[in-house]
């Protein structure tokens, strides 16, 4: 079909290359010593750490090994769970631990010990200790008679103090600032390496490895959000949560979409949202020359009027903020179909006739149209292309 703009591939040369941490052969393991890690920490630009150490020097503060938590095997009956310190028990969480129980994965219980008493107030690990109690009571622990389940000794790390506020702070620290949150990339990496290096063929590991291969084959590389070495390199992808639930065939479409149209860019969340919807909401098969031509036109629109998917995401977000304020009375965070909705509306305004996803019909309420909330300068540019097209016809 005759479309007034065409897709122009980028010729920008890529200078940085991704160091793919997951491209490994069996028996290829990376290890670092604590000394290696310390060298990284001691770099002069890690000013925050140097300042913190300097502050300790100024205050004359130092620490003793004796202040570290003590370690002891404690009978379960001596452990108390204070409901005003720990969270409510989550039975479903206990169920999950019991279902997949592996004794090698059990952590010590953290507790505060009352001075001169064998009473331990658990500050972290209530689900662990209840799980162990349940297994012992169910006669599933070889060394324990089921009726003596509360005599079973568990590993406890404790601090002795009568300051209950310490216990409260300890819980908050362990579950808040003191715990580094696990990035979805870390889960993905563990699954992929378990499959690739350790030959563990669990279904979820095989699926993660399959998705990793799909990405790599299209020049897309999942990385950790704070990966200093690879951050910002075209083809890197940090939205691991987005690919976790996507079916392999949809992911294949998405990474091929990136490879064909946006390989000189980082894989943007906005781009992933658009390509996912173009696959999942398509009215026609997505592997035909007609659909490919439609995709050329869609991406030509993104490049000509919005520069790239990341900028389109920002523009759609701003537009949706104004639109939702007028329609719903309050600005809402951007709807996941907003960016594609705008692009499809532009496609139809430019005379596109392909059977587009029904998403084009949405975001048009109370006499308001999301399209009208994009920047006037962009609409002006679109109108000029429409006018030029009519003039030349």
């Amino acid at each position: 079909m005759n479309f007034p703009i065409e897709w122009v591939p980028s010729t920008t040369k890529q200078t940085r290359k991704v160091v793919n941490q997951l491209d490994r052969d069996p028996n290829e393991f990376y290890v670092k010593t604590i000394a290696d890690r310390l060298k990284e920490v001691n770099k002069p630009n890690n000013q925050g750490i140097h300042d913190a150490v300097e502050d300790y020097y100024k205050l004359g503060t130092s620490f003793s090994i004796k202040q570290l938590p003590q370690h002891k095997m404690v009978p379960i009956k001596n452990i108390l769970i204070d409901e005003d310190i720990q969270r409510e028990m989550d039975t479903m969480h206990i169920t999950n631990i019991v279902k997949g129980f592996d004794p090698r994965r059990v952590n010590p219980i953290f507790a505060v010990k009352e001075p001169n008493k064998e009473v331990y107030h658990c500050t972290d690990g209530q689900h662990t200790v209840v799980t162990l109690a349940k297994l012992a009571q169910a006669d599933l622990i070889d060394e324990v008679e089921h009726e003596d389940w509360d005599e079973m000794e568990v590993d406890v790390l404790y601090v002795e103090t009568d300051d209950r506020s310490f216990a409260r702070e300890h819980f908050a620290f362990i579950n808040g600032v003191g715990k580094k949150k696990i990035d979805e990339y870390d889960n993905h990496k563990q699954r992929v390496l378990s499959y690739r290096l350790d030959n563990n063929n669990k279904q979820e590991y095989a699926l993660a490895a399959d998705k990793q291969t799909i990405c790599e084959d299209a020049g897309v590389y999942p990385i950790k959000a704070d990966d200093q070495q690879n951050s910002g390199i075209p083809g890197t992808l940090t939205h691991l949560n987005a690919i976790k639930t996507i079916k392999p065939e949809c992911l294949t479409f998405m990474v091929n979409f990136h490879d064909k149209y946006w390989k000189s860019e980082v894989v943007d969340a906005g781009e992933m949202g658009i390509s996912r919807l173009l696959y999942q909401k398509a009215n026609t098969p997505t592997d035909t020359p007609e659909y490919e031509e439609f995709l050329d036109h869609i991406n030509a629109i993104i490049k000509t009027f919005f520069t790239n998917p990341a900028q389109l995401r920002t523009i759609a977000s701003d537009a949706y903020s104004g639109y939702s304020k007028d329609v719903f009375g309050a600005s809402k965070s951007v709807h996941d179909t907003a960016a594609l909705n705008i692009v499809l509306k532009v496609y139809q305004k430019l005379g596109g006739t392909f059977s587009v996803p029904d998403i084009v019909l949405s975001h048009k309420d109370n006499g308001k149209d999301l399209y009208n909330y994009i920047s006037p300068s962009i609409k002006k540019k679109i109108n000029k292309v429409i006018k030029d097209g009519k003039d030349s016809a």
Partner: protein
Amino acid sequence: MEKIQHSTRFLYIIQTSHSNTLGFGVATNPQRRLQDYVAHSAAKQEFYQLYYGPKSDIDALETYIKNEWMPYRLDINGSWKLEWFDPKHKKSCQALEQLIDDKIKGHPMPDVRKLADIYAPFKNYYSKSDITKVNLDHDPDKYLQKIG
């Protein structure tokens, strides 16, 4: 108060006169931005080059520079990188200009232009400048040159 949404922006290259540090940034009013640099450094400053274009193109260029030259960016506190390049990497204004020009040509971004040679470097912090959005929009060919 509603924030004013500008449809065009400037991207500038700066090498500070007092520390010789190379940097870049985005501004809606380059004259005022240069004045800020002068006031903060207590020294005369100039923008080695100034690009002008649609907001989405200029913002994308800024992201591109940040990403492409990420390893060279100054990192003072170990947690975030600045829009300045560490002098130890010996990056030049010319190299940064080439990087930007190549991206504009390669993407391509036909609506982004840079100052015509007679107007660069931009140093109009002390007097009324001709380099204003009104003038550039009215007569782009007089003040700006196409890239590629």
